[in-house]
């Protein structure tokens, strides 16, 4: 699926740091523009009997907002992130154990869900958990005049007509998860997916570069 007229996709500057926390088994912080998320992964660890699954690991995702307690919005984001991670992790290799992913919002300036996904992927990679592929999150906003903005800021999100977030896998650039808000046509949806797939290439290249940096001392 190729949509003509995608010249160049603009994303805000992003940066990341891996294994910055000492206690978790894997950690990362991911920044997209001014949006910043800190992620920590614990596992494979001992699991509560009530949550034990006999043939695969139990994955728990916890999202901590900047202030206050997690509410309904965070719960729905947790579910989105969890289902994406479950699809990419090889959970059957660690049956009857628990994986916990904690995501802490440091600052929200739009495209928060995609930043969650990127931070989660980096942290899972850092923890060395077996994964079948990588994934990344891309947010697209459709403005009132129909223009598609990738990686919008909070102000752009507020003014837009529709907001779409996709999780894209690294193998075949397929959509793993989508979360949408507002009204849009089928054509616009297709266009957003194509743009996200294009943008994902940049993010995956960034993942590779940052892993390269991390291992540069013991090559």
């Amino acid at each position, binding site marked *: 699926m190729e949509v003509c007229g995608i010249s160049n996709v603009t994303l805000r500057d992003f940066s990341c740091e891996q294994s910055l926390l000492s206690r978790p088994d894997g950690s990362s912080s991911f920044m997209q523009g001014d949006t910043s998320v800190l992620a920590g992964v614990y596992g494979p660890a001992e699991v509560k009997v009530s949550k034990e699954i006999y043939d695969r690991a139990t994955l728990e995702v916890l999202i901590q907002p900047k202030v206050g307690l997690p509410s309904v919005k965070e719960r729905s984001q947790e579910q989105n992130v969890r289902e994406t991670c479950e699809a990419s992790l090889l959970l059957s290799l660690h049956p009857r154990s628990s994986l916990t992913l904690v995501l802490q919002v440091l600052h929200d300036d739009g495209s928060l869900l995609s930043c969650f996904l990127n931070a989660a992927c980096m942290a899972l990679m850092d923890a060395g958990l077996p994964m079948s592929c990588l994934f990344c999150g891309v947010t697209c906003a459709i403005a009132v005049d129909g223009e598609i903005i990738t990686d919008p800021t909070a102000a752009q999100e507020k003014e837009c007509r529709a907001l779409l977030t996709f999780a894209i896998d690294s193998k075949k650039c397929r959509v793993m998860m989508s979360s949408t808000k507002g009204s849009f046509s089928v054509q616009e949806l297709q266009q957003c997916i194509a743009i996200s797939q294009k943008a994902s290439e940049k993010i995956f290249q960034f993942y590779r570069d940052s892993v390269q940096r991390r291992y540069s001392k*013991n090559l």
Partner: protein
Amino acid sequence: MISALKDKVGQILVPGDEFCCGAEDTISLTAHVQPEKVVCGPGLMRSADRLQVCKSGVLRHKEPNMFWMDSQQKRYVPTKGDAVIGIVTSKSGDIFKVDVGGSEQASLSYLAFEGATKRNRPNVQVGDLVFAHFIVANKDMEPELACIDGSGRANGMGIFGEGGLLFTVSLGLVRRLLAPHSEIRSDLQQLVPCELLVGINGRVWLKSSSTQRTLIIANLLQCCDTMTAPQRRTGGRSALIDCPSQRWRM
């Protein structure tokens, strides 16, 4: 496929990278062809006719056809045959429960010590450190430890840990410490004499002539992950010169 794998040795790979079974390899019809087998270590998985990378890290190779991913991680996953340092957490009848840092506690029979019989029980207390190897370790069963080898000898295993310090480092560093001709180990040998016991589960037990020295070496080892070789050498030397007990002697 082997040639494609060999090209990538020493490079960084991430989950999702794949190697196809070689369509480029031509098969001779006249000569007798021995099919080449590839042995996949941790981080590599076979799925149908492809070889899949499932951990990020550096691809390593050992002759003739062994490949694995060398990755830095902190959490240990029990593997059969690994020699580990465990902490005894409970005694229940014939079995000790031992924490080895994995997802489940390992069990250690009281008969799995050198010279132990039903009459002559080994003296093991809760909280003791034990150096043992896995005789059963797979994802579906409870891991089991033993402090004797196949011929019933202790071979260096058993209860230990009088007056030393136990600390944890990353699994990648432990593998570097245990590697034959390890650079870190030889640097340490030149720096200061000490007793060092390394478990592949990321636990290191250390004892040297004074508490301060032990602490300095422990800190140095924990920093080794993020230091280059020259940094390690100068850092170690300056830290030991600053050590007060050293100054008194001079």
